[in-house]
């Protein structure tokens, strides 16, 4: 394999690994904040138990999120020296500001975990607020780098020289605000749904332990509501993101939709596979005019197809599938949550049927799949560019990557993925929920 391909595979895997833990690192502290607040308002100690147990799980996930993030940060320099030279001159600012977000998160996370017993309830809420703020800010800030690659701004590029740099214009590049919101909302959605998944699974298992079932049911409803709200937000804002693609990265949108001929009244093709030989989308469902409507709010909107661009600049055609996976999951989850609430309303006291709980176990993993598909789409849809229309991947990459490194890092990720699951399962097995709930009861009697 040549060095460019290895660099891409290695960096892509590192990010794909980091993003799992990073996303949960944004979503879970937010959920902890909510239950801390609910506990304060309602005085219901179940929420305190939730906060405690989620924090424990989160602390373990951070043990992977932080080193894997460090890997990504350093590996960028090692694998993409050409890119970093450009980044240093143009988009270094958000990276530096992100450091403050990391500090905020790290400081308050330690305080929340190791000094909780010395804090008053109000200070605890403030502490966990800063944890959630730091984590969300790090996601929002790093997105500036990614959107800069998609829609570079804030400098002039002349004869290979970068001049007239405006760091803030680079930071707030055209696709930044929309994407940052998208990343944040989708992470909050995924964190909430991850909790829904666990709660749904536990509800299936604790049929004859009513006390525990009550606890899981509270977590279930709460996370389902938050996940549902966030998923609607993600979709609305994702629509905005797609309109910006239409404006700023037309070839990416064309590849995402498998559109070859430029046209007004362009059709939307759902599903199917874009075939590189025949230049058609096979097995898809075509909705006439829909793409024009979505992209420009009118059937008359002219949408540019791939033929308008030189073929060597086409993004890979599989991005159509990636985009469909992301949007499909988003749409499915919104309908699913809506359906669940209708069923609740209709069946009243009888609650949800078991098959629905089984289906709901999937919402967390599906969300995560949406995140992965979204990122791979955003990054590979930019190909062959690392910085859109400025720097090609070959010019960004190192010349000395080798397969050995790829194998080493992949083994490391596999090892960590396996062990983190084992550690989490072992921990929660040793500290059963019943104990925590009993402790609460005892404490309640004393006071």
């Amino acid at each position: 394999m040549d060095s460019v391909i290895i660099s891409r595979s290695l960096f892509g895997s590192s990010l794909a690994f980091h993003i799992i833990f990073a996303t949960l690192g944004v979503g879970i502290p937010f959920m902890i904040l909510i239950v801390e607040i609910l506990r304060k308002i309602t005085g219901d100690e179940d929420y305190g138990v939730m906060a405690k147990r989620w924090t424990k799980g989160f602390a373990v996930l951070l043990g992977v999120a932080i080193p894997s993030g460090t890997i990504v940060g350093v590996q960028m320099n090692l694998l993409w020296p050409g890119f970093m030279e450009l980044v240093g001159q143009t988009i270094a600012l958000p990276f530096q500001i992100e450091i403050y977000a990391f500090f905020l998160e790290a400081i308050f996370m330690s305080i929340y975990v190791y000094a909780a017993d010395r804090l008053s309830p109000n200070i605890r809420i403030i502490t966990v607020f800063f944890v959630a703020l730091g984590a969300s800010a790090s996601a929002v800030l790093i997105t500036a780098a990614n959107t800069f690659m998609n829609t570079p701004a804030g400098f002039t590029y002349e004869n290979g020289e970068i001049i007239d740099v405006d760091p803030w214009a680079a930071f707030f590049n055209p696709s930044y605000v929309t994407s940052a919101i998208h990343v944040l909302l989708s992470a909050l959605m995924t964190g909430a749904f991850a909790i829904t998944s666990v709660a749904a699974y536990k509800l299936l298992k604790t049929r004859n332990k009513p006390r525990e079932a009550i606890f899981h049911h509270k977590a279930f409803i709460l996370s389902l509501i938050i996940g549902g709200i966030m998923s609607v937000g993600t979709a609305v804002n994702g629509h905005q993101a797609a309109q910006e693609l239409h404006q700023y990265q037309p070839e990416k949108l064309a590849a995402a939709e498998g559109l070859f001929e430029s046209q007004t009244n362009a059709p939307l093709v759902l599903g199917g596979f874009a075939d590189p030989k025949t230049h058609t989308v096979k097995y898809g469902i075509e909705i006439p005019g829909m793409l024009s409507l979505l992209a420009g709010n009118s059937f008359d909107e002219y949408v540019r197809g791939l033929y308008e661009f030189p073929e060597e600049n086409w993004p890979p055609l599989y991005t159509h599938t990636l985009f469909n996976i992301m949007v499909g999951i988003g749409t499915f989850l919104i309908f699913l949550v809506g359906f669940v609430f209708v069923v609740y309303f209709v069946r009243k006291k009888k609650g949800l049927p078991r098959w629905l709980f089984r289906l709901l176990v999937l919402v967390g993993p599906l969300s995560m799949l949406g995140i992965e598909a979204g990122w791979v789409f955003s990054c590979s849809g930019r190909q062959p560019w690392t910085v859109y229309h400025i720097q090609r991947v070959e010019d960004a990459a190192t010349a000395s990557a080798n397969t050995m490194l790829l194998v080493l890092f992949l083994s490391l990720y596999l090892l960590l993925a396996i062990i983190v699951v084992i550690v989490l399962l072992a921990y929660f097995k040793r500290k059963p929920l019943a104990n925590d709930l009993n402790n609460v009861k005892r404490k309640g009697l004393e006071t």
Partner: protein
Amino acid sequence: MTNTFIATTLLWVFIYVYAILGSIDFGAGFWAMVFETRKKTKAGLLANRFLSPSWEVTNVFLVLLVISVFSFFPSAAYTLGTVLLIPGSLILIFLTLRSAFMVFSFTTESYRTTLKYISGISGLLVPALLVSVLPITSGGFIEIINGQEQLLLGKLFRSPSEYTYLAFGLSSQLFLSALFLSDYAREALEEAAYRTYRSLAIWLGPMTLAAAVLTVIFMEPEAQWLKVNIMEQRGWFSLSVAAFIIGYSALWWPAKQKTHSKGRPRIAVLGIVAQYGLATFAYASAHWPYIVYPMISIEESITNSPMLQALLISFIVGSLLLLPFFIYFWRLFMKDRSYLRQK
């Protein structure tokens, strides 16, 4: 003051701060492992009590360092990224094993000792490898092939210079962490653990000094320029040795309270931290104006001035905003008796 000067000074400060914090952090991980199975002493427990809340914050300093290099000196980032691919990747792998397994060992009871060993030993290697990046930047290990810079890994592994730097990195982290933990133990009123760490520090102090001298003696022929410059910084290095003597001797000064055993660890820590400050400053001045000798100089690789200005402003604002939080953090974990002295 020029922008270049400010950027360079800041970078030196970051390197220095991380050198100290990182050494203490990784060293403490190693001591936690060493004393893991010895239940009689509190030494391991204290190391863990220090590490659990602090390792995340320390890690951010490492990230800060890396980010500062490419944001202040983008074209140095190109060369550094290229030649450090292999050593950098090794560091990342050990760092990851260290952090992850340490967190795992805090969480599970089964296999705790194994997890501690993996994390302790990988942690030991990280500062050693980080320090051994230094000889790469001072000449003799980079070759330009077809216009592409390449690291001469074989030569590096066979070079005595690399190993003296490595030894310096190792002994520094063990010394600094033992010294720091002796102070931490005193603060926690654990006199037995204090004596353990004090005697370790007494052993390790002279070893680091010897390792430092050896690194200068064994420098590569291509790095002779650095040796010459280091000789010119004699004044600073002498001050640094003086700071060492004060700090080191404080381990024998009579304690403030009669019930305590010999030594004033707080003064010892401050003395040695000052020593490292003076020595790294002298080393950095000797290295000036090269980031990577002979191809990358500071003047040529500094970033454009709008970016630099934005970075400096954001740095000042960010530091001011964060300062109170750092102080709060320090008071909760380094000063609060109820945390330090819990049973």
